[in-house]
């Protein structure tokens, strides 16, 4: 799983004229060489490959990219990717914000336990969690059996292999990221600001929407972009819970690699995915700079 990292700015605080330096710039060289060789060059080669493989007598180098954007099927897949990512981001925010708020304002000594329960599933394998949803949602699964027993549904039906199951799986995996992003910022919001608003006559909801929510926007932005980017890059939930009904860009890359072996096209799709991620990160950097936030 790709845990997102809010990029930290270097400490800009002015220190003494010349602090003691243990390590010189040369200590950075090995890792730069390693990543240059095994990270930058492969990704660069990937871009070249996508351009070269597309270029034939009749097609320009951008053939695959034009195909991705203009072909009805592939354009649909890109839209589906964005749609799935957007919906799961909004779901995570709605589901997660109250939990984050509770953790910061009321949990007290329970906070450590809630944090543990939130990050413990991140340590189980993604296969285990999707398998778990299949166990619950399959025709003879726990949830479907219970629902049928209670008469909510007439007879057990297969709820796995539906877009519903994909969203359930995504929210399950990603809501903790959203919650921890929000609690990080919410912790710094002075509770007295909320109290002042109440004393001055604001309603509970008014206080929330006019004080708490605006002050936690940084955390919301970090969490949303994190969830959005990770959703765009994940394919296992779609593969194992979507029943072929949810096809996103990364799932298509997986299928291209496994079935058709069309390397150039898979590379182009990967770059498209990378491009979407870059846009998101630029937005985040801009947002955080504008609001003066530091995460």
């Amino acid at each position: 799983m790709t845990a997102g990292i809010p990029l930290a700015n270097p400490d800009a605080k002015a220190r003494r004229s010349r602090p003691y330096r243990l390590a010189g710039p040369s200590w950075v060289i090995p890792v730069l060489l390693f990543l240059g060789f095994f990270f930058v060059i492969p990704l660069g080669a990937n871009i070249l490959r996508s351009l070269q493989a597309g270029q034939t007598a009749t097609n320009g180098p951008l053939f695959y990219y034009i195909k991705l954007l203009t072909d009805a099927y592939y354009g649909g897949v890109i839209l589906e990717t964005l749609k799935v990512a957007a919906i799961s981001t909004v779901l995570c925010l709605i589901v997660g914000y109250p939990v984050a708020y509770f953790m910061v304002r009321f949990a007290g000594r329970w906070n450590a336990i809630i944090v543990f329960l939130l990050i413990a599933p991140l340590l189980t394998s993604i296969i285990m969690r999707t398998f778990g949803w299949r166990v619950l949602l399959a025709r003879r699964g726990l949830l479907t059996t219970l629902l049928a027993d209670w008469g909510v549904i007439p007879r057990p039906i297969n709820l796995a292999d539906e877009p519903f199951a994909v969203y359930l799986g995504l929210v399950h995996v990603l809501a903790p990221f959203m919650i921890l992003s929000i609690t990080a910022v919410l912790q710094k919001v002075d509770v007295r600001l909320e109290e002042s608003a109440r004393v001055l006559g604001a309603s509970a909801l008014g206080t929330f929407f006019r004080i708490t929510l605006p002050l936690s926007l940084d955390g919301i932005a970090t969490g949303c972009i994190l969830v959005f980017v990770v959703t765009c890059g994940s394919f296992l939930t779609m593969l194992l819970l979507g029943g072929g009904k949810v096809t996103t860009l990364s799932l298509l890359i997986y299928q291209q690699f496994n079935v058709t072996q069309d390397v150039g096209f898979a590379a182009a799709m990967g770059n498209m995915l990378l491009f979407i991620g870059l846009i998101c990160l630029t937005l985040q950097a801009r947002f955080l700079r504008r609001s003066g936030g530091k995460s």
Partner: protein
Amino acid sequence: MTALEPALPVRRRRRVRYGVIALALYVLLFLGFIAAPIVSVVAVSFSTASFIAFPIPGFTLRWYWRIVEYKPFVDALIVSGEVAVLSTMFGTLLGVPAALALARSRRTAAAIVSNFLLAPVTVPAIVLGLALLYFLSSLSLGISFTALLIAHTVAGIPYIVRTVLSVYRAIPPDLEEAAAILGASRWQTLIHTTLPLVRSGVFAGGLFAILTSLDNLPLSFFFGSANTNTLPVVMLSYMENQFDPSIAAISTVQMLIAIVVLLIADRVYGIEKLTS
């Protein structure tokens, strides 16, 4: 949904309390939602039925025996462990010196390099895997343990750099200065002063790197072969063919390994610090 003030009138305070109770119930429900699939997998792993059915007809350990008997599971578990530990070791050797050099520098270049070292985590693993596979194939390293190790090292470096950077930045340079003034060589300062000070950062970053590596299916499946399959890759291909509780059993074992690692981490470092 709001904070209480002791000075507020009683009537209002009580109404607000109900809101808090409702919120607490919601959080409980949410935690149940988080736990539900995991708990049900553990339950299924003990089921006597060879298909998924509730209520569970009876208890058995036979699916755990199946893990031991099914050689790919055992082999893959070993490969996973080796890759996780070795890639984290290499990532530490590469990442820690860099983080130490970058943390105290105020130059723009240092900020750019720091962000660059964190970049691999923002690239979707499936893209990185695809790109690395074809690049390493051109070096005739294609599908090999070395290739797998390189891929996981690239993915692990950001976790180590990030935590060491933040821990080292919070430490004032005075202690190292004192060591230097008292005549310690640079090497002695590093071994006796700096490394013990940043140990918690190295430890937390390494933990993240190990746990991410253990479950990095999108990166691993590109380099899969009979002797380079990691556990998640074998589990995925097993699941595509069969749907029996042995997947539940191996998942439970994998979770237990992670829990043990986490408990050790908690003893040494404290879990709450890991999330900050």
